[in-house]
């Protein structure tokens, strides 16, 4: 049995089916109305025309042969077996019957040349008559009529059929709408319940796919791939948060214990000064970590796109090479710059400088002997800026992992740095629609490949 829930009637499906029922009902009434006027209405008109023609005939007879001839003609008509549903009545000026097949002049016929409708009992039945009256030149009155019961019966059948039709349409429409809404609601409920479970924290829940391939299945599939992406992002944020907490805990612990030591007041002024100096440097490191995170957020946010201008990659490379050359030389490394001007790309100068600086800084930091090479090259549709070194390099299986935030391949985390440098480079490359490629045979080569029309 149908369980009538008020919720069902509020569904848009139900409202939509009601609207359809309404539209369908109105158009059905219009069709039936047309049929009625084309059939029943036409029948009555045809009846009236026949009566009028008969009356005209009889009047013509009168004009040809006077009252005598008219009476003879009527007499003949009455005798005729084919009188059928016809009625005739001729009365004198005092409404006394002269000739006819009905006994009395109907009370409804008050004046001559008048259409009327009256009922006469004949046997057990009642006959509905349609009639026309006319006055003859000699003062007599003539009535010619016809039984219109068949036409009336047809009309009432038509009306009844129309009403039944409308009622059935309405009932079927409401039932159909109800069933359809219930079906829709059931499938939507599954999706709603799924969404509620996910909101309560079960991110691994998925929307059921029935397998019918209909729009609900497609919706469920879209939602599922969205959930997949959300789950991945949440997991990566969770990993970043955990790493961040781990990375911040040790320096904060060190800062705290050092400050506690200072608070006890032991040691001479120079020693205390040294401790505080060290603490400040350590908090600077922490701030640097946050700054790096903010820079990554800035590059990933995309707002920096508004400040991109055409710039020559070689000039950017020159600036960074110039900044790092003394440092590399002090370490016994050759810092080489290859290429020439002309690789003009639309880019954010400061962010690009930062990306290149991070790469060169890494190269100088991790290379103990040999050289660091910055190279710029371009063709019509690509511009490449690359940093290669002769350091230890990165094993191919580790190359994807270095881009994750906080990953330092040195697991003991003994070298300086917050593990965000390459993540920032990757974010800046993404902002520019550029590709970041790791390679290198002896040592590491990192390429940033810009794909845009080179001016």
């Amino acid at each position, binding site marked *: 049995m149908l369980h009538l829930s008020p919720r069902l009637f509020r569904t848009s499906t139900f409202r939509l089916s009601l609207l359809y029922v309404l539209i369908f009902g109105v158009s059905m009434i219009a069709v039936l109305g047309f049929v009625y006027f084309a059939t029943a209405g036409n029948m009555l008109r045809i009846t009236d025309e026949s009566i009028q023609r008969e009356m005209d005939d009889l009047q013509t007879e009168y004009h040809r042969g006077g009252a005598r001839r008219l009476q003879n003609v009527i007499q003949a008509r009455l005798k005729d077996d084919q009188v059928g549903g016809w009625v005739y009545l001729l009365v004198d000026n005092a409404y006394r019957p002269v000739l006819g097949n009905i006994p009395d002049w109907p009370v409804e016929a008050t004046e001559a040349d008048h259409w009327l409708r009256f009922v006469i009992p004949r046997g057990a039945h009642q006959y509905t008559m349609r009639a026309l009256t006319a006055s003859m030149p000699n003062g007599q009155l003539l009535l010619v009529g016809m039984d219109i019961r068949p036409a009336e019966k047809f009309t009432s059948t038509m009306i009844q059929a129309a009403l039944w039709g409308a009622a059935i349409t309405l009932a079927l429409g409401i039932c159909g709408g109800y069933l359809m809404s219930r079906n829709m609601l059931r499938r939507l409920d599954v999706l709603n319940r799924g969404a509620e479970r996910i909101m309560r924290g079960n991110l691994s829940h998925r929307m059921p796919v029935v397998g019918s391939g209909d729009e609900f299945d497609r919706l469920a599939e879209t939602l599922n791939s969205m959930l997949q992406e959300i789950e991945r992002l949440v997991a990566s944020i969770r990993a970043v948060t955990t790493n961040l907490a781990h990375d911040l805990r040790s320096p904060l612990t060190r800062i705290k214990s050092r400050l506690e030591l200072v608070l006890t007041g032991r040691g001479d002024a120079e020693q205390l000064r040294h401790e505080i100096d060290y603490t*400040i440097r350590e908090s600077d490191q922490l701030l640097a970590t946050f700054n790096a995170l903010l820079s990554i957020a800035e590059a990933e946010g995309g707002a920096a796109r508004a400040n991109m201008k055409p710039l020559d990659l070689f000039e950017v490379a020159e*600036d960074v090479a110039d900044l790092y050359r003394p440092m590399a030389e002090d370490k016994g490394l050759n810092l080489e710059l290859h290429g020439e001007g002309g690789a003009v790309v639309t880019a954010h100068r*400061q962010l690009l400088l930062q990306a290149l600086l991070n790469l060169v800084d890494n190269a100088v930091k991790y290379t103990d002997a040999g050289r660091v090479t910055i190279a710029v090259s371009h063709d019509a549709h690509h511009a490449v800026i690359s940093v290669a070194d002769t350091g230890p390099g990165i094993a191919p299986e580790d190359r994807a992992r270095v881009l994750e935030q906080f990953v330092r391949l040195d697991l003991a985390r003994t070298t300086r740095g917050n593990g965000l440098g390459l993540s920032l480079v990757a974010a800046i490359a993404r902002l520019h629609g550029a590709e970041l490629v790791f390679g290198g045979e002896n040592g590491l080569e990192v390429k940033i490949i810009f794909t845009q029309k080179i001016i």
Partner: protein
Amino acid sequence: MPRILIIEDDPELAANLTAGLKDAGYAVVHAADGEAGLTLAQKDKFDAMIVDRMLPKCDGLSVISTLRQKGDQTPVLILSALDQVDDRVTGLRAGGDDYLPKPYALVELLARLEALLRRKGAGAAETRLRAGDLEMDLLTRTVTRAGKEIDLQPREFTLLEYLIRHADQVVTRTMLLEGVWDFHFDPQTNVIDVHISRLRQKIDKGFPHAMLQTVRGAGYMIKAN
């Protein structure tokens, strides 16, 4: 005693800043929101202003642009928690003279403030710079110390020029990165130190008085005497 107006809504930061500036020998007036700051700035004359970007009632950038429209040329140092390259650009465009992201080190702020105050007095384009017995000719791009010519690379020349223009002031590493290399972010490296020690080799080696000095925990300074 130079008078400084601080417009900053964080009471603790404002108190620290006021104390730090007073210790450094400045007279300080503090306003806690944008409207009060604007009123004070228009009523009174200050040598420099330190303005936070995000303020109640009227934000820092509007305060600055209003003052600039009225022809007030008081040097302004903008403080901001919005540590992003493009925020810096909008800050300077609104009429700020320098921009320092929070959290900042007090030495950095003092160094920049002093640079702003000195710049105010700087006259027309000079062709010769001098600090003690160190002389720079900006036209022939030659440097001499006590008459002895010193050979510098182009970037070393620019670095020395920046230091001499800020002689007897503390110059921080970020100021050098901005002023000499046009890098507007903190690269978290000691790469500047190497440039300084090379420059020091060239200008101080063989002279009894070391002009290019390291200011512990802050930066560097050219000491004229």
